[in-house]
């Protein structure tokens, strides 16, 4: 799947990832500009998706209980989706970690916003393809979100053939490499479906979340 990096990244989102809800001042704006250029130059976004019937889901994908089961209510199938910014961004972040801590943190946050933007783009592409067939789908739902265990990640990656299609590997502790990669599931149905979000109840961050402290949730941004 061809994915294009946007010309500009979401600076406010990047700063939120760093815990700042302030408007950037002049000097921070200049740094954001430089770092954005570095991230965009290093990124080579790729995406891939594959569709499955509900019955094809192996037990290891852990779809039968909890939040993800509720998310999939009414869905006869699902799409697995993966995107990655590629190895170049990892190299950039490693280099900056050793040479410029501030730029490292800023580029890390900016790259996260880019990964999110690219995932949203891939999601739209899936939606469009399904729409052509008169099918409906839920929003993206990723392993580790709500109570869907990260243990589903390696299974998801195998089903997606993520290494061959995206250059993405999943480690024994369920981490994706390259780091700025996103995998997700979308429920597919022949009638309109919303897909239930997990909410804060099962979130591991529900006591420490900076969004909640401000009276909001991550879905509000």
């Amino acid at each position: 799947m061809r994915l294009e990096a946007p010309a500009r990244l979401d600076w406010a989102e990047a700063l939120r990832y760093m815990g700042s809800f302030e408007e950037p001042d002049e000097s921070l704006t200049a740094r954001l500009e430089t770092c954005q250029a570095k991230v965009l130059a290093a990124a080579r976004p790729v995406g891939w998706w594959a569709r499955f019937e509900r019955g094809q889901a192996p037990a290891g994908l852990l779809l039968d209980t909890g939040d993800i089961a509720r998310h999939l209510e009414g869905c006869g199938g699902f799409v697995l989706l993966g995107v990655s910014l590629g190895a170049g961004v990892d190299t950039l972040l490693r280099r900056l970690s050793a040479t410029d801590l501030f730029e490292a943190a800023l580029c890390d946050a900016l790259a996260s916003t880019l990964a999110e933007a690219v995932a949203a783009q891939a999601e739209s592409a899936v939606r469009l393809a399904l729409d052509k067939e008169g099918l409906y789908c839920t929003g993206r739902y990723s392993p580790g979100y709500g109570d869907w265990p990260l243990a589903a990640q390696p299974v998801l990656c195998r089903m997606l053939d993520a290494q061959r299609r995206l250059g993405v590997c999943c480690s024994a502790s369920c981490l994706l490499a390259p780091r700025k990669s996103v995998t997700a599931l979308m429920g597919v149905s022949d009638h309109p479906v919303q897909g239930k979000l997990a909410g804060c109840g099962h979130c591991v961050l529900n006591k420490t979340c900076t969004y909640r402290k401000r009276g909001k949730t991550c879905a509000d941004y």
Partner: protein
Amino acid sequence: MRITELFEGRRTVILDGGMGTMLQKAGLGPEERPELLALTRPALLEDIHRQYLEAGSRVLYANTFGASRKKLAGTGHGVEEIVTASLEIARRAAQPYGALVALDMGPLGEMLEPAGPLSFEEAYDCFAQMVEAAGDKADLAVIETMTDLYEVKAALLAVKENSSLPVLVSMSFEENGRTFTGCTVQSFAAVASGLGADGVGINCSLGPAEIFPLAKQLCEAAPQGVAVFVKPNAGLPRADGSGYDIDAQGFLQAMLPYRELGLAMVGGCCGTTPDFIRLLSREFGELTPPPRHPKARSILCTPVRVVEVNDVTVVGERINPTGKKRFQQALRDGDMDYLITQAVEQAEAGAKVLDVNVGIPGVDETSLMVRAVKALQSVVDLPLQLDSSNPQVLEAGLRVYNGKPIVNSVNGEQEKLEAILPLCKKYGAAVVGLTLDEKGIPPKAEDRVAIARRILDACLAAGIPKEDVYIDCLTLTASAQQKEVMETLKAVGVCSRELGVHTALGVSNISFGLPCRPYLNTAFLTMAMAQGLDFPILNPNSAEMMAAVAAFRVLTARDEKSEEYIRRYASAPAPAPAAQAAGGVDLAGAVYRGLKAEAGAAAAELLKTQDPMEVVNGVLIPALDKVGDAFEKGTLFLPQLLQSAAAAQKAFDEVKKVLAGQGGGGPVRGTILVATVKGDIHDIGKNIVKVILENYGYRVLDLGRDVPPERIVETARQEGAGLVGLSALMTTTLPSMAETIRQLRAAGLGCKVMVGGAVLTPEYAASIGADYYAKDAKRSADIAKEVFGS
């Protein structure tokens, strides 16, 4: 079929087609492990093999693509069992057709370091286990569908060191001519053939039409004598995941142009079936491939960058501790970030290759070389020149190097030639030969040339081609051996013109002991380049020397239309004095406002009159406290905190320089060990904590990420760490944090433990026995003060 027929080039050898495709047709589910079919459905595999043989395949890839211990983990089956069974099935099918059977090895499924947690050494072990399991049951080994050149190297070494099987390697490229990890076709050709691959190829990812231009590049890049092959997919995958976009006839049509390339073997990958191979076999089976005419080029490379030495190529000399106290201190502390900073600086200054020397008395040079090579190649994309006189150090560096490096150096001594050239050959490295021998450096040019000739002959005899030989005629110091300067230049001229080899020189030695060294350095460099010097080893941060190179390229018409020169110098201001503490910003102000350059300059200024520890305790720490307080109150945020930390870090670099000059690390406030726990590779939070703690004057040992508990315990014990900081970002790696704390306690070490990371809570921290929960970097500094006293 005899194995040698693969490489004789009399007829194009037909390989097989897709195995996964055939298995899916037979009903293999998306989560089923294809390798297990060797046990559960051997007849199915044998039948697929037989279909390919009937279609004309002369070589079968056994169904062992994912039979590594990494991929078989959790299946309850072992490598030996699956590899043996799969090879036996392929052999049963192949026998009646007289076809060959290959042990097939695909990627291990985990990303190798530095991007992932899998070490090069473990990857090697995984492949070696497969090779040993194959024993004499395979006729050849195939390494395929690789996207990471480092993994190719691990697999190739595993085959070469554990068997005598011929070996083919193919990588998968994207349409931009690079693999997912950024590896180029030229880098692949240079490294794989250098390591002794018998054949190099391209498979998977793209169809024949898209692979064609890449295959052409590969045919030009692969040295004579190395077979080239392709196994494309059946076109591109359809967007809806329903298969591939060309049929057997379309595949054949797209393959026809390949007849001109001189390929030794052809086959198919995903989406191809016996029908594809049948057509391919009719067209290619009787074809005598035309001879290839690859160009002999002098190449050094990393996976993502190829440096062709066909012009003056600057080698940066700065990663070398000789005469540099700060550098020596960094090596003793194992501070790889310092080396990385030096590397990045030189790369930005225009170096094309970086020399790496880590030899100082009292350190384990071998393990330091390994660490330095791994650290440098994780961040810079310039090829490295591994610099040591010790063959053991060189071999350790060559082994873990990802790319084609150059070795510095061998010389005319028989013993050196015998020890070092076989290493260069084995690992596919180029080599610098110094024109000295048992009798020392000959004063006369002709005697140095005679040694050069001997070195070149020895290289050729060892199988190292001429284009990989670089002769260093040795710069002698003008202040001591003035008359011999011209002899060096004369020797450079003869080696370059008559022997036709590249020539190297350590340029700045010329001016040792004389004032205004850049004047002499540039004059000598220019004279030497006029004689043919094309591999000068120098300090690229010297604007004068880099200007001499740029000017030389204009005057010899290599920099066409002076484009590079103009780009570099058109808008450059006249050379200016070093940055002052601009606008009179004081150190505390510079740190608070996060002004990096100003903080460095202000610290340097202050250190002229004040004791380094006074600067730390009296200025830096109060400034950082002020920033930290504002952060805690919420009037200042992480971006500003980090900018201040980076500025303080710059100031601290100046402090370290002074301390190293005084002969040591100086007094420290306490030793803190930080690490991201095993299984986790997120390290930005840990890096922030590290810098902040360093800025407060603590000695911080950073063990990196994915660190096993045993190593943390061992280091904490050896170094007497008073505080251990552990970081984990994922719920899946929290257990490994708990285990690390358990082992630290079991070892009876008196250290305190603080933990941090996005998913941690104070309650969880307490439940796993941590002494402190650090919610952010500021808190970690407060904890350190509590532990060590402020």
